[in-house]
């Protein structure tokens, strides 16, 4: 991380310290982000991977012409010119499953990333802004959800939806996964509560909804973006994990579902390695894309990586440590 980062910072990024910044506007956050993509190698790799997946998700028809679900007599066939990755246990083309599954996985990642962050934003910021009883109740709900082991709960819920599609997965993941982000956003909003621009808004007599949406939320763009990326990564891993144990196995075209069938048919003992290596690698690469973009973004916005005064360094690093703890991955298990 030594070289590209320093050049990026020498280029004069606006407003360092995403978390402690006193109200960066959306445009500077965006500019910082594009700057990061150009100058940070991890960001470049992450964005390039992401661009490929988005392209495949948008235009699967350009890359695969067969049906991912059609029965054929050639079951568990080895790779050939007609079936690049072979066929599965019903004779369907695995390559087509990987290509067509991309869209489902991308929708899942983006929808859960956005919904989770949105729910967390509403709950966290509202709690911080309203304070008092509201804060107490919302905080308690957040803490309880934070502690209850989510993945076992998801498995139990998934047991009731053997034919679940993407929609069920999106709803279930979003409404169980918001607690950590909510807590982060709450403390961030709390740290703002005595700033002049908020006091001014209160004095002007603005309604809470206006203050939250127009005054508080825009100051959190970088944290929201980081949360989005974290939650999207979580969705990819948790969603694929649930599909891998059989959620939506009968009607879903998705990488996790392809892996489920590969596992059920013991693909490794019959020599059909590509059946599980390719979809698994796709999950890994998409996960890496989200993680790299997030990490690079963090690196750029984190003044701890450049020479600054000790106090500033400490503050920013503490904030990013807290954030990093979240991405450590128990949530995804």
């Amino acid at each position, binding site marked *: 991380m030594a070289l590209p980062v320093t050049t990026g910072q020498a280029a004069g990024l606006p407003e360092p310290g995403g978390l402690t910044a006193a109200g960066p506007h959306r445009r500077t956050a965006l500019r910082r982000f594009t700057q990061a993509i150009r100058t940070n190698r991890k960001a470049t790799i992450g964005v390039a991977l992401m661009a490929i997946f988005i392209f495949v998700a948008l235009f699967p028809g350009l890359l695969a012409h067969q049906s991912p679900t059609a029965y054929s007599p050639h079951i568990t066939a080895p790779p050939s010119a007609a079936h690049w990755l072979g066929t599965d246990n019903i004779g369907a083309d695995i390559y087509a499953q990987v290509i067509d599954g991309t869209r489902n996985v991308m929708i899942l990642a983006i929808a859960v990333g956005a919904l989770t962050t949105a729910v967390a934003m509403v709950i966290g910021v509202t709690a911080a802004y309203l304070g008092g009883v509201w804060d107490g109740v919302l905080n*308690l709900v957040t*803490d309880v959800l934070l502690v*209850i082991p989510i993945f076992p709960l998801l498995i139990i819920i998934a047991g*009731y939806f053997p034919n679940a599609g993407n929609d069920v997965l999106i709803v279930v993941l979003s409404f169980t996964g918001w607690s950590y982000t909510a807590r982060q956003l709450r403390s961030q909003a709390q740290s703002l509560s005595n700033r002049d621009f908020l006091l001014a808004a209160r004095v002007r007599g603005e309604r809470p909804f206006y203050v939250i949406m127009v005054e508080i939320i825009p100051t959190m763009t970088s944290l929201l973006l980081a949360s989005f990326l974290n939650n999207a990564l979580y969705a990819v891993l948790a969603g694929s994990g649930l599909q891998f144990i059989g959620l939506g196995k009968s009607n879903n075209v998705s990488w996790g579902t392809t892996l489920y069938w590969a*596992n059920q048919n013991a693909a490794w003992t019959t020599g059909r390695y590509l059946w599980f290596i390719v979809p698994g690698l796709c999950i890994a690469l998409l996960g*890496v894309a989200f*993680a790299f973009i997030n990490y690079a973004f963090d690196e750029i916005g984190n003044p701890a990586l450049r020479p600054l005064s000790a106090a500033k360094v400490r503050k920013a690093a503490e904030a990013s440590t807290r954030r990093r703890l979240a991405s450590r*991955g128990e949530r995804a298990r």
Partner: protein
Amino acid sequence: MRFIIRRAGFFLLTLWAALSLNFFLPRLMPGSPAERIIAHLHGAVSQSEVRAIELSLGINNSQGIWPQYFTYLGHTATGNLGLSYSQGEPVSKVIGGALPWTLGLVGITTILAFILGTAIGAVAAWRRGSRFDSVMPPLFVFTTAIPFFWVGMVLILIFSVHLGWLPAGGNTGQLAVPSFSPSYIGDVLVHAILPSLTLLITGIGGWVLTMRNNMVTTLTEDYVRMARAKGLSSFRVMADYAARNAILPNLTGFAMSLGFVVSGAILVEYVFNYQGVGYYLLNAVGYDDYPLMQGLFLIITVAVLVAILLSDIATAILDPRTRTAG
């Protein structure tokens, strides 16, 4: 003291929330639990058997839902978790048989991952800008983002199918008889290598990244500069001055992660047919075995709560600042 009471209240509330989720989820979902079980028995049950199944689930249709709820809470409080329908044994017995395997496998791996990850992170930060530091963090960002059930499959492919060095699954060999003989213990260890390696590969990254981050901050502190100025050896400054302070936030996370030991490896246990808590949970879901599901979920939640309690205590002992602040 007030703090302790508040924490205890929070734990009770969380436990109650988990128990209630447990109770109401099956009843909110389409179809009754008993109907699902009967479907598994292919309909070959009489009316009185249906009644017996319902009773074993704590479903008593002559009562309203609330009396049932309180009966369930009462039973759970007294340690009566019911009968596992798929295993034909009391739930507590099934859990008792599964828990040691999970605690052993995942617990030891979690501790290893923490120690190794923290050491790598500390060295990476100490040699900031070196080749070690430019390779390690991106590598571990990568490993944290790959699905670990897939890592397990790839390891099976390499070490079991191709090289034939290690068994592909199970807790022990099929004919192994539990004893304290070296051969049995060796058998257990051999079967634990691949699942453990899977967890290690995917679990270590988080520790490396957080430790490196903390360390980078700690290295700018005055006491580290002072230690250097005193002419202490490089290793001593790194280990006793910088790492010792940088590890504090990680220790809290470590205690938390011990709570997730019980539930953290569900998919790994599934891939390797390792008969621990996660394996039985998936089995219970597959067979609609509600008493077992509820019992396992209870144990998993309790484990997390105990770990949080320990982490609270550990932080209070290790970091005096939190004692005055709390």
